[in-house]
């Protein structure tokens, strides 16, 4: 190829990039699937209708690596739905920007949803689930029941990995929900959690992907399992199952958050969308589609009472909810992962 040709090609490339950059819409990135379909109907399309700002959607699978890659290149993503890991790391690294909390109002949101660089947009939980059809005389009601193989014989499943498993082990060992992390912060507490897990090891199997627990319950492979609450309700709705969530046993809830990337050239439009989304009336529309809790303090009261019991941030569920302590896990995850793996693989 001659030099002129290469130059021409390069010029054409630059021109192409320039035009796409100009024509770029406000780009919102979420998890895809049924969840993003619901978001589109409730938030994205009404936003465009009201403001005239066009939205382009993308979806991703999470990971700080992917976020870094997007934040270091030319502006492509503006608003991204992230998990707490990415929120904390992204904020530390300056690849996402601080939000204007004067506009949103800190008091309008659950305390856990307020972060310098992000606003929690849904509450989801890891819960104790079982198939009520298999327990005509009443299923497990506490984590102590999960660890009681005499009263409830059969295999149970946990997510592979120490997160949530250690919290549940302590709850099963009689630690009150609000003291779990205090106990877990001491080496004796960690030993205690592992000892509790070890007591049912012969009856334990482990799952990796969120789709597995409903399958394990449906096939009768396990009698009870930890699961993501949204998956349990979805199985009931779409497959007519009778899976129950033991909310009263204690559950660990986490948030996803909206963040705005630092390299976005649409900071104002992005903030405008977040304000639009923050409206509690609008947030309350999501749970009937998918049982993730709204984060605006007023929204829970506006949710359809039919579906309210299924969401983690419902007032009746919250007393036994434990907010996932990201600070604890960020510091200890490597050591505890190794220990969990060594223990589980024996």
């Amino acid at each position, binding site marked *: 190829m001659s030099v002129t040709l290469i130059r021409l090609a390069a010029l054409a490339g630059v021109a192409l990039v320039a035009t796409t950059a100009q024509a770029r819409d406000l780009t919102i990135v979420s998890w895809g699937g049924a969840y993003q379909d619901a978001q589109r109907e409730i938030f994205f399309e009404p936003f465009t209708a009201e403001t005239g700002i066009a939205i382009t959607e993308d979806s991703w699978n999470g990971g700080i690596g992917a976020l870094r890659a997007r934040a270091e290149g030319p502006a492509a993503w503006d608003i991204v739905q992230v998990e707490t890991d990415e929120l904390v790391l992204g904020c530390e*690294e300056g690849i996402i920007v601080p939000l204007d909390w004067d506009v949103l109002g800190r008091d309008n949101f659950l305390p856990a949803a307020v972060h310098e660089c992000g606003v929690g947009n849904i509450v989801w939980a890891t819960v104790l689930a079982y198939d009520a059809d298999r327990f005509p005389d009443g299923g497990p009601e506490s984590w102590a029941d999960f660890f009681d193989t005499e009263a409830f014989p059969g295999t149970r499943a946990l997510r592979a990995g120490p997160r949530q498993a250690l919290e549940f082990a302590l709850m099963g060992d009689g630690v009150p929900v609000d003291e779990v992390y205090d106990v877990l912060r001491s080496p004796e507490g960690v030993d205690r959690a592992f000892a509790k897990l070890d007591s049912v090891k012969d009856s334990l199997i482990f799952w990796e992907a969120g789709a597995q627990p409903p399958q394990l319950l449906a096939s009768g492979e396990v009698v009870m399992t930890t699961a993501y609450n949204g998956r349990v309700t979805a199985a009931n709705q779409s497959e007519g199952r009778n899976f129950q969530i033991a909310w009263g046993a204690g559950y660990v809830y986490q948030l996803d958050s909206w963040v705005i990337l630092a390299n976005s050239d649409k900071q104002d439009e992005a903030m405008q969308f977040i304000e639009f989304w923050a409206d509690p009336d609008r947030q309350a529309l999501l749970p009937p589609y998918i049982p993730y809790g709204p984060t605006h303090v007023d929204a829970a009261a506006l949710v359809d009472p039919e579906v309210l019991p299924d969401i983690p941030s419902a007032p009746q569920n919250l007393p036994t909810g434990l907010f996932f302590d990201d600070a604890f896990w960020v*510091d200890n995850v*490597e050591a505890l992962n190794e220990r969990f793996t060594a223990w589980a*693989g024996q």
Partner: protein
Amino acid sequence: MAQATIAQTDAVTSSGSMITASGEPLKVSLARAERRKRLTAFFLVVPLLIFILITFIIPIGDMALNSVRNPEVVTYLPRTADAIQEWDGQGLPDEVVFEALVEDLREGMGTPAIGRVGARLNYEKSGMRSTMQRAGRAARQLEPPYRETLVERDATWGEPGTWRVIQRESSPFTLSYFIAALDRTYDDEGNIVQVREDQRIYVQLFIRTFMLSLVITALTLLLGFPIAYLMAHQPARIANLLMILVLLPFWTSLLVRTSSWIVMLQQQGVLNDLMVLVGLIGDDGRLLMVYNQTGTIVAMTHILLPFMVLPLYSVMKTIPPSYMRAARSLGANQWTAFWRIYVPQTTAGIGAGGVLVFIISIGYYITPALVGGQSGQMISNFIAFHMQRSLNWGLAAALGTILLAAVILLYYLYNRIIGVDRLKLG
């Protein structure tokens, strides 16, 4: 061309060496022709070479380098890394080092610096991530003397161990990842010691990976040999049908095959149901055959079977039946003839199939991930874990490099003992 030159060569120079028609010594002319041939051959493979270099050698080399690369502290805490070199490791470092740290932190706040250094140091010492973060946030308001104020804010800065970690990791290359990959760590005095017993995983995992691969190789041989034998000694019509039966699963998606094994083996699955039905086991005594090592062995043996059958078959096809007949006619019974005459002739196929299955299984990932539970995981699953989830690429690279070195070593040993030239793939 070279032939033409030779044909024309009839003259002999006075010194005794042959010359070509053009008066040039034959040796030189031949060498030139040879060189041209080699060059042509080289240029023919250049595209492939470049392809392999770009897609294979360079990425693997780069990945392997990740296992010793250690840029975080040097890059993001340059003043600290510089100042701490002088420290003798006794007590706490001087104020100069603390001052350098505070300056680095002030500069690093709001950039990726502190997050990445924190993540790096957290591999060595739990809690360093948030310690760095807190110090970073506080750096702007800190007043000298920094040594007192920092220690007062966070006792971690008062531990000599914290500073030893920073000093140790303040060079651009490190062996820490390899040390971690062998279940070792540094103690407070800087000696390499084993990690706590309940955190040792990788050595055990390497051993398990090798043992599982050996078992799977042995099982495929055990199951594959009779099939290959049958295929090689049946009329073409039946042999072809058998061949299709061997290849059919080979053409089916790997995920489908693995998932079917879950359906077959799980506690409420086909096999358990059958055994309960015929009364072999009670309904409450259903066997756990998946989500553990059994699952990994069964599914991988099935998936890798064709890799054993095909080389065996191609070797057996070439063994003349007359050898066996000759052995029988010389008085050997069926078994002796088979064992002493037939089997030794198949070693090339056994070797090829064995090496193929063993090397594939040693790096196998997806099947153990799906059916292995916790006890059936192999080392590749942990490499993937550190690549994708924990983002500890250094450790992933160290584990991968050790695995690669082990495979190369095995291949070398195989070559020395049996000889790679005896491999026959088809």
